[in-house]
């Protein structure tokens, strides 16, 4: 697969595939040609060149390079990866861990799966670069329990990496903290909350996946109480092509994506680089596509996804997994980058876009989402444990036609009173409730008339009055 095969497609911005370089994907290749890239094929196509460049550099300079590129985390929060890496305390000879978050469980998100399925070595290269840069000796690849096939593929890739001395005894990384670097796969067992970084660490330690109170942050006291870096699969994978270009990496990376919003203070990061978008729902050709950050929703749907299914009209979309909330119908040409928060959403999330057409019942969508969060709440914080399930019950009732206008106000009040962010009154430990909060609030607010049409009229009584 070489060069562009889509000259006639004006809707794509990306000039050449980066993360999907070896994974045939529209418009550069045909997904039917996909097969697992072995270590040998990976090396033949410039693989592990980035690691070679990194190993020739001082670890600190690698961190600075990633910092200079302004790589933002691809797992949801969009936190700058280089900055996260620089939070580690100085080495003290003890163990330091890397945890790779592959607990991809958010509805709408299936992008990391593509990399694991077909190009596992780009992930392993990113892991090795990070271990070298941050002086981490042990890495755990936390993969969700339902990814059975992916687990087998990745185990085989790890074995290849060991056989070729990327990792393990006599690794080309040399000894780190006086230990040969190791990469182990840790299999989850079906818990969405384990995608939260500290819950993931608890799960690695063999406990229930209950998020921890921060501080201490994982960089200081993470897995087994030791300094730990937690990164998403795609974040680490994208470091490999950056390092492959050495000193030119940051400039190359920043030639893609969008600049920081106009007038934003310098500490607000821009949205640079390529990104995997997983599009599902009512489009003709759903799937994972690689594009530059900042492609518009319209171009993504009408270009790569070949339009709406059955010629229906666009109604709404979720920009990055259900926790990010919904866009209004007018926001059809919104740019999908990290600045999407200004459209009253929680953020770009994982860029798992769920598209819905004009026939979609938003009450049903809200009910489905509330049930998901009610089911996946870990039960540690009361507002989330009770609130999510309360909302799920109310929405099921509203959908069945038994709701009243009071329910709608109550729904907004419950949603707005849970979450770790100020929008959720800081009432919970982790961000799971923020997802429920934003999803339900944005759906109800942006599609109020649909909800109103489902319920009968009743005067609203505030919770505080009911409670008193």
């Amino acid at each position: 697969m070489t060069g562009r095969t889509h000259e006639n497609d004006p809707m794509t911005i990306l000039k050449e595939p980066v993360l999907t370089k070896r994974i045939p994907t529209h418009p550069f290749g045909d997904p039917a040609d996909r097969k697992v890239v072995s270590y040998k094929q990976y090396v033949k196509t410039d693989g592990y060149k980035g690691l070679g460049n990194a190993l020739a550099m001082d670890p600190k300079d690698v961190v600075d390079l990633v910092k200079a590129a302004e790589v933002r985390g691809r797992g949801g929060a969009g936190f700058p990866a280089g900055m996260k890496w620089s939070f580690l305390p100085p080495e003290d000879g003890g163990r330091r861990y890397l945890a790779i978050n592959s607990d991809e469980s958010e509805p709408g998100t299936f992008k990391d799966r593509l990399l694991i399925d077909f190009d596992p070595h780009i992930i392993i290269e990113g892991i090795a670069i990070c271990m070298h840069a941050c002086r981490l000796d042990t890495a755990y690849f936390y993969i969700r329990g339902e990814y059975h096939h992916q687990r087998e593929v990745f185990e085989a890739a790890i074995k290849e990496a060991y056989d070729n001395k990327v990792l393990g005894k006599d690794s080309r990384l040399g000894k780190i903290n006086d230990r040969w670097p190791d990469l182990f796969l840790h299999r989850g067992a079906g818990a969405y909350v384990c995608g939260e970084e500290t819950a993931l660490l608890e799960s690695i330690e063999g406990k229930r996946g209950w998020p921890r109170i921060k501080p201490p942050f994982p960089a200081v006291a993470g897995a087994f109480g030791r300094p730990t870096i937690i990164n998403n699969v795609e974040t680490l994978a994208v470091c490999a092509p950056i390092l492959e270009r050495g000193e030119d990496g940051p400039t190359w990376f920043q030639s893609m994506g969008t600049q920081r919003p106009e007038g934003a203070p310098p500490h607000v990061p821009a949205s640079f680089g390529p990104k995997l978008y997983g599009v599902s729902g009512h489009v003709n050709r759903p799937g994972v596509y690689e594009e530059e950050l900042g492609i518009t929703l319209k171009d993504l749907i009408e270009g790569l996804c070949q339009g709406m299914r059955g010629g229906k009209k666009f109604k709404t979309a979720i920009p990055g997994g259900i926790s990010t909330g919904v866009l209004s119908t007018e926001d059809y040409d919104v740019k999908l980058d990290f600045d999407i928060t200004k459209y009253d959403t929680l953020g770009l999330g994982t860029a798992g876009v769920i598209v819905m057409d004009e026939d979609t019942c938003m009450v049903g969508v809200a009910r489905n989402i509330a049930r998901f969060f009610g089911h996946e709440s870990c039960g540690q914080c009361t507002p989330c444990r009770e609130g999510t399930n309360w909302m799920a019950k109310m929405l099921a009732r509203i959908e069945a036609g038994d709701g009243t206008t009071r329910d709608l106000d109550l729904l907004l009040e419950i949603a707005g009173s849970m979450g770790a962010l100020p929008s959720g009154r800081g009432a919970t430990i982790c961000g799971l409730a923020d997802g429920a909060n934003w999803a339900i609030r944005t759906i109800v607010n942006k599609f109020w008339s649909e909800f109103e049409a489902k319920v009968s009229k009743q005067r609203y009584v505030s919770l505080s009055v009911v409670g008193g």
Partner: protein
Amino acid sequence: MAWITKNSGTMQIDRRDEPYLTDEIKQKLEDEVVPRYDTRMAVTMPALHLVQDTHGWLPQQAIEEIAEFLGLTASQVLDTATFYEEYWLKPHGKYVIWVCQSLSCELLGQQGLTQQIGEHLGIGPGETTEDGKFTLMSVECLGSCGTAPCALVNHKLHENITADNFQKVLDALE
């Protein structure tokens, strides 16, 4: 729901002489898994997976054996085992059908599909057929939204399913 646990204080535990955590499994864990982690407690999840993959589910006796092997209390292991949805603390059918019910799958017709599968098998979600062949489960996102609706049958993922093609899959199972 992950956080609901049952009172086990007065529970009768079925026991058998032959251990679930066989010497062979113990050896495998000791050689391959224990060195990977800093604590023995961290071996809990791999041990639960291994016993479940061998036996199909996790009887209380197995929980106790794992606890003893790892130097933990049975309640610590049970605490972890009850949290995660994939661990079975009671037996299930030979084939477990996990139908995804999350948003992308629901948008593309999962509700009718689950109903049709249920009618075909004569069971509802959470139930097992009388012959012990199938257990039907409605679960949250399986990470296959682009090929929705989807379902796992034991460890195998089926994508873009319809009532027709999925019934053929089920009928072909022994």
